[in-house]
C-alpha cells in the first residue's frame, strides 16, 4: 500500500475492488492489525488503530471474514461460533445467538459437524455467521460471494442490507461485479496499492482509469 487514503462511510455498504494483487486483502490486514504499516494511520471512530493487537481491534467492534476461509477445522460448527465470544457473555446468551445465526445460514443440520468437513460454500457461510456472533459495528467481508450458490448469495445479501439498516458499516472485497455494483453505496478502486478511483457505482463504471486497470490501456493503431 502506498499513499493510499480513503474513508469508509459509516452505516453504509462500501466496496473495495481492484485487480489481483492490488492490495485489497492487505488493506483488510492493515485494518484488523494482522499487518502493520510502515507509516500512516488507520482511524476508527477517531481512534488510531495502528499498534493495537488484532484481538484488541476486534473488541472495538471490527470483525472480518477471510478470502480463503479460516474455519477452525477440527471444531464443530457450534464451537466455531462460540469461540469468538468473550468470557463476559453468559453461556446461555452465546448459545442462543449461535443457534440463531447457524439457522440463518442454513447449517443447523451440521451444527455438530467439524468445520473442516463442510463444503467450501458452507465454510464461507459459517465464517459469515461467525463474524456476526459478537454484533460488530464494522464488518469486513473478503469475497463473500465466492463459492456460494446464487440462492444463498441472495439470502446473504438480504442480510447484509438488514445489517446496513441496523446502522452497521460494511466493507466488501469482491470480484463479482454484480454484487459490488448493485449493493454498494460507495466503491474504492485499488491498483498496485494505490487508490485510483472512489465514488458511487455509476461513476466507477465510467471511470477511464478503472477500465484501464482492469482491461489494460487502449492501444492506438500502430503507425506506419
Amino acid at each position, binding site marked *: 500500500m502506498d499513499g493510499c487514503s480513503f474513508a469508509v462511510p459509516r452505516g453504509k455498504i462500501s466496496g473495495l475492488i481492484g485487480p489481483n494483487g492490488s492490495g485489497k486483502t492487505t488493506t483488510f490486514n492493515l485494518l484488523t492489525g494482522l499487518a502493520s504499516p510502515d507509516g500512516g494511520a488507520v482511524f476508527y471512530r477517531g481512534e488510531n488503530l495502528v499498534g493495537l493487537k*488484532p*484481538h484488541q481491534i476486534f473488541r472495538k467492534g471490527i*470483525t472480518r471474514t477471510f478470502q480463503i476461509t479460516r474455519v477452525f477445522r477440527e471444531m464443530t460448527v457450534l*464451537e466455531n461460533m462460540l469461540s469468538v465470544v468473550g468470557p463476559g457473555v453468559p453461556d446461555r446468551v452465546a448459545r442462543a445467538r449461535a443457534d440463531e445465526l447457524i439457522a440463518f445460514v442454513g447449517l443447523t443440520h451440521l451444527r455438530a459437524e*467439524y468445520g473442516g468437513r463442510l463444503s467450501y460454500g458452507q465454510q464461507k457461510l459459517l465464517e459469515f455467521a461467525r463474524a456476526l456472533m459478537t454484533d460488530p459495528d464494522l464488518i469486513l467481508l473478503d469475497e463473500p460471494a465466492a463459492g456460494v450458490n446464487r440462492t444463498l448469495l441472495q439470502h446473504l445479501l438480504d442480510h447484509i442490507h438488514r445489517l446496513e439498516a441496523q446502522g452497521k458499516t460494511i466493507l466488501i472485497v469482491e470480484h463479482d461485479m454484480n454484487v459490488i455494483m448493485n449493493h454498494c453505496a460507495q466503491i474504492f478502486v485499488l491498483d498496485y496499492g494505490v487508490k485510483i478511483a472512489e465514488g458511487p457505482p455509476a461513476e466507477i463504471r465510467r471511470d477511464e482509469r478503472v477500465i484501464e486497470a482492469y482491461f489494460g490501456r487502449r492501444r492506438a493503431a500502430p503507425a506506419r
Partner: protein
Amino acid sequence: MGRHEHARNLALLGALGLALGFLPPMLSVYLRSFALFTMMYVVLALSWNIISGFTGYTSFGHVAFYGIGAYACAILVTDYGWPWLPTLAVGALVAAVAAVALGYPVLRLKGPYFAIAMLGAAEGTRVVATVWDGLTHGGLGISLPSAETSLPTYYAMLALMVVTIAVTYAIGHSRFGVRLNAIREDEVAAEALGIDTTLYKLAAFTLSGVFPAVAGGIQAYKVLYIDPPSVFFVQITIAMALMSMLGGKGTVIGPIVGAVILYTVQELTWVNFPTAHLIAYGLFIVLVARFMPRGLVGFAIDRGWARKGMVH
C-alpha cells in the same frame, strides 16, 4: 451437554475417587505402588494434554516441571526440615512462576521450534540441578529421611488425580477450552477473532505445568531418593505425549485411558519379557499409531460412537 450429564460425570469421578480410596488395605505393597504410579501418569498425561492437546503446542520438555516439583520437595524436607505436604504447594508455585517466565518467550515459537525449545529448557533445568551444588546437592542427588510413605503418597496422588481430572473436565467443556482449540486450529484467525492468544496460551501452559510439579513432589517422597537424571528423565515427557496420543489428545478421557493402558502394558511387558520389553512396548506403539492415528477416542469419534467437539 446438559446439566444432568455433567452431574452424572461428576458423580462418576467421585465414585472412582472413593473406590480408589478404599482400595489400599486390599492391595499388596507392589500393587499399591503400581496404582500410585498409574495415577501419576494419568496426572502427567492430562497436564501435557492441556497445552499440547487442547492448545496444539507439542511440548517435549514437560518433565522440567515434574523435576522442579521433586526438587522443591526434596530440598525443603531434607535441608529445611519442612513437613512434606506443604512442600507440594511450594513446588506448584515455583513451577507456575517458571511456566510464566519460560512460556512468555517460547510460546512465540510454533510447531517443531516450540517442541525443541522445550526439550532444551528441560535439559537446561537438568543441568542447573546438576551444577547448582549448594541448593540441589548436585549429581549426588538427595536422600530423603525415611518414613512410612506408602499410604500418604497414595492418598496425595489420588487427590491430585481427582483434581487434575476435574480441572481438565472443566476446561474440556467450557468456552475457555473451545478458545484454546481455536488457537490450535488457526492461531492467526483466533487472534483476529478476538482471542488474546498470548494470554490464553500462557494460562494453558501454566496450568499444564502446575500438576506435574505436584506429582513430582509426591513421587520424591514416595521413592525417597532423587537425582537429576531420574527426575529430569526425557522418557517421562515422551510417556506423557504417548499416553495422550494413544488415548486421544485434545480430549478429556483420552489421556486418562491412554495412561492406564500404556503404563499397564509397560509394566506387564517389563515383568514378562525382561529382556525384550522395550521391543514389545515399541511394537505396541507402532501398531496403535498405524491403526488409530487419532487415538482411541478419535477412533470412536470417527465411527460415530462418540460425539465430535467439546461443547454440544
